[in-house]
């Protein structure tokens, strides 16, 4: 396997993305705006402040992160599964010099790219609205890429283990949704029971990631910021495992 053989798969996905630009890009872009208005301005006007900052400021990183998260995770779950199972696109590709590994890496890399694009656009919007400074946004950027890679890989892992599309309900309702609420997105997890705080730090990479993002508001701490990069290990683990499992699943 040559290391660049996944690129045609990545390009295929980029081409589809460009074709369906409005559906893929513009519509999901509205979601962060809804979050900003509902929580930032709506709910936020009833909440005095959270840990020394306004509620609106508190949830800004969460909105950025969720844009990347949704974009990458739902790509390598539902989109990849449809291509693999219903459209048989993977079968068509592995009849060429490309291998299953190339296909899987191409998918994960595109999920990463997609997540990074979504997060970056939200960041850009927040910079333009003067909600976040450009300097902080630049610090956020590499973290967003790592986050996208991690959740892209995690999504592919779930795709490699489910047998039908309905089964995605297991990872989504048992893992993804709880993560959206209990990793410090809408409120600081310090208000949770100690056991849940520990659990949240272990199983949800988002918890670590958000701490890293918020260190800029609490008074910058280098090690807290760098800590966020550790989620890359999480991503690499699922990257390797999903490649192995996909070979088992598709090469029979």
């Amino acid at each position, binding site marked *: *396997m040559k290391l660049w053989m996944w690129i*045609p*798969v990545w*390009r*295929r996905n980029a*081409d*589809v993305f460009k*074709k*369906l630009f409005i559906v893929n890009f513009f519509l999901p872009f509205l979601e962060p705006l809804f979050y900003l208005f509902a929580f930032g301005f709506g709910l936020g006007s009833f909440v005095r402040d959270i840990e020394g900052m306004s509620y609106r400021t508190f949830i800004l990183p969460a909105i950025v992160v969720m844009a990347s998260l949704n974009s990458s995770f739902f790509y390598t779950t539902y989109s990849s599964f449809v291509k693999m199972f219903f*459209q*048989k*696109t993977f*079968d*068509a*590709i*592995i*009849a*060429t*010099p*490309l*291998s299953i590994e190339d296909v899987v890496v191409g998918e994960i890399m595109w999920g990463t790219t997609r997540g990074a694009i979504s997060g970056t656009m939200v960041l850009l919007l927040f910079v333009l609205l003067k909600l976040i400074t450009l300097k902080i946004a630049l610090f956020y950027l590499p973290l967003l890429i790592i986050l996208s890679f991690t959740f892209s890989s995690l999504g592919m892992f779930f795709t490699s283990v489910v047998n039908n599309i309905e089964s995605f309900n297991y990872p989504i309702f048992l893992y993804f949704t709880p993560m959206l609420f209990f990793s410090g997105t809408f409120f600081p997890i310090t208000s949770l029971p100690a056991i849940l705080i520990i659990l949240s730090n272990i199983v949800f990479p988002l918890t670590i990631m958000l701490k890293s993002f918020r260190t800029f508001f609490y008074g910058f701490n280098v090690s807290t910021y760098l800590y966020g990069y550790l989620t890359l290990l999480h991503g690499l683990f699922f990257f390797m495992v999903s490649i192995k499992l996909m070979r088992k699943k598709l*090469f*029979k």
Partner: protein
Amino acid sequence: MKAIIEGSKIVKRYDGFEALKSVDFYVKEGEIVGFLGPNGAGKTTLIKLITCTSFFNEGHLSVFGFDVNNSQSKVKSFIGLVPQDNNLDPDFTVFENLLVYSRYFFIKKKQAEVRIDKLLDFVSLTDRKNAKVNDLSGGMKRRLIIARSLINNPKILVLDEPTTGLDPQARRHIWELIGELKKSGKTVVLTTHYMEEAEQLCDRIYILDNGRILVEGAPNELINSYIGRETVEIENCNDIDLNSIPGKKMFYKDKIYIHCQEKMEVIQGLTKLCGDIKFVVRPSNLEDLFIFLTGRELRE
């Protein structure tokens, strides 16, 4: 001519079930070889092994001298595959399907565009170049897949049931295309359920059943040597004792098929036995041989 695909003693198991049981076969350069067999005989499994989209448990398989276990990417670069399912990319147009596919072979865009125009002309889809794939008819989709399988200018074309589900016109069109590809020097491997298709197209066939190869050879020679070149069909005469009649007899409901080398003896014998009996005499075909070898039982 030399064999460019050689398989020996290939065994393939799926969860303990043996899909191929020690299969030996070869394909020579420039010939059209057909694999025939009932559902579950192992045809598609064999195709998957040749195209390196599956692995086998025992035996040896090489394509152009390359061991398929060690040189998958290389072997796949020589092969064009028309799979059983139409796995075209529904997100793209006809042209885009071919262009995107060409990238998987690392063909430069300029070169690919020239080749795509030629291929679309070859499969008569030039005027549908910008059509959405889902707007194409079944026959058009099949032709587009054939065009796609040729994008890398393969030496070997592998077609898994290329005409299943097509109307007679579309089927004949595809036969013409396959014939032209043979003329241009391509080696063709195909599977089919249509005996007429195999008789028309194939230089050599293998008939498989239950993961084994039953017979191998040119269709006409196989018919001659296994059942004889003529067949006499009679109806409604179950009570006749046919022991004195020469030939191989096959019984199906109230019909009897007598396969023989020489029809006169059979006809004379029959008229002697039952006077003016109604019968049909016709040349034996591959379907007769197929049923003779694999039986009439339904396969799942």
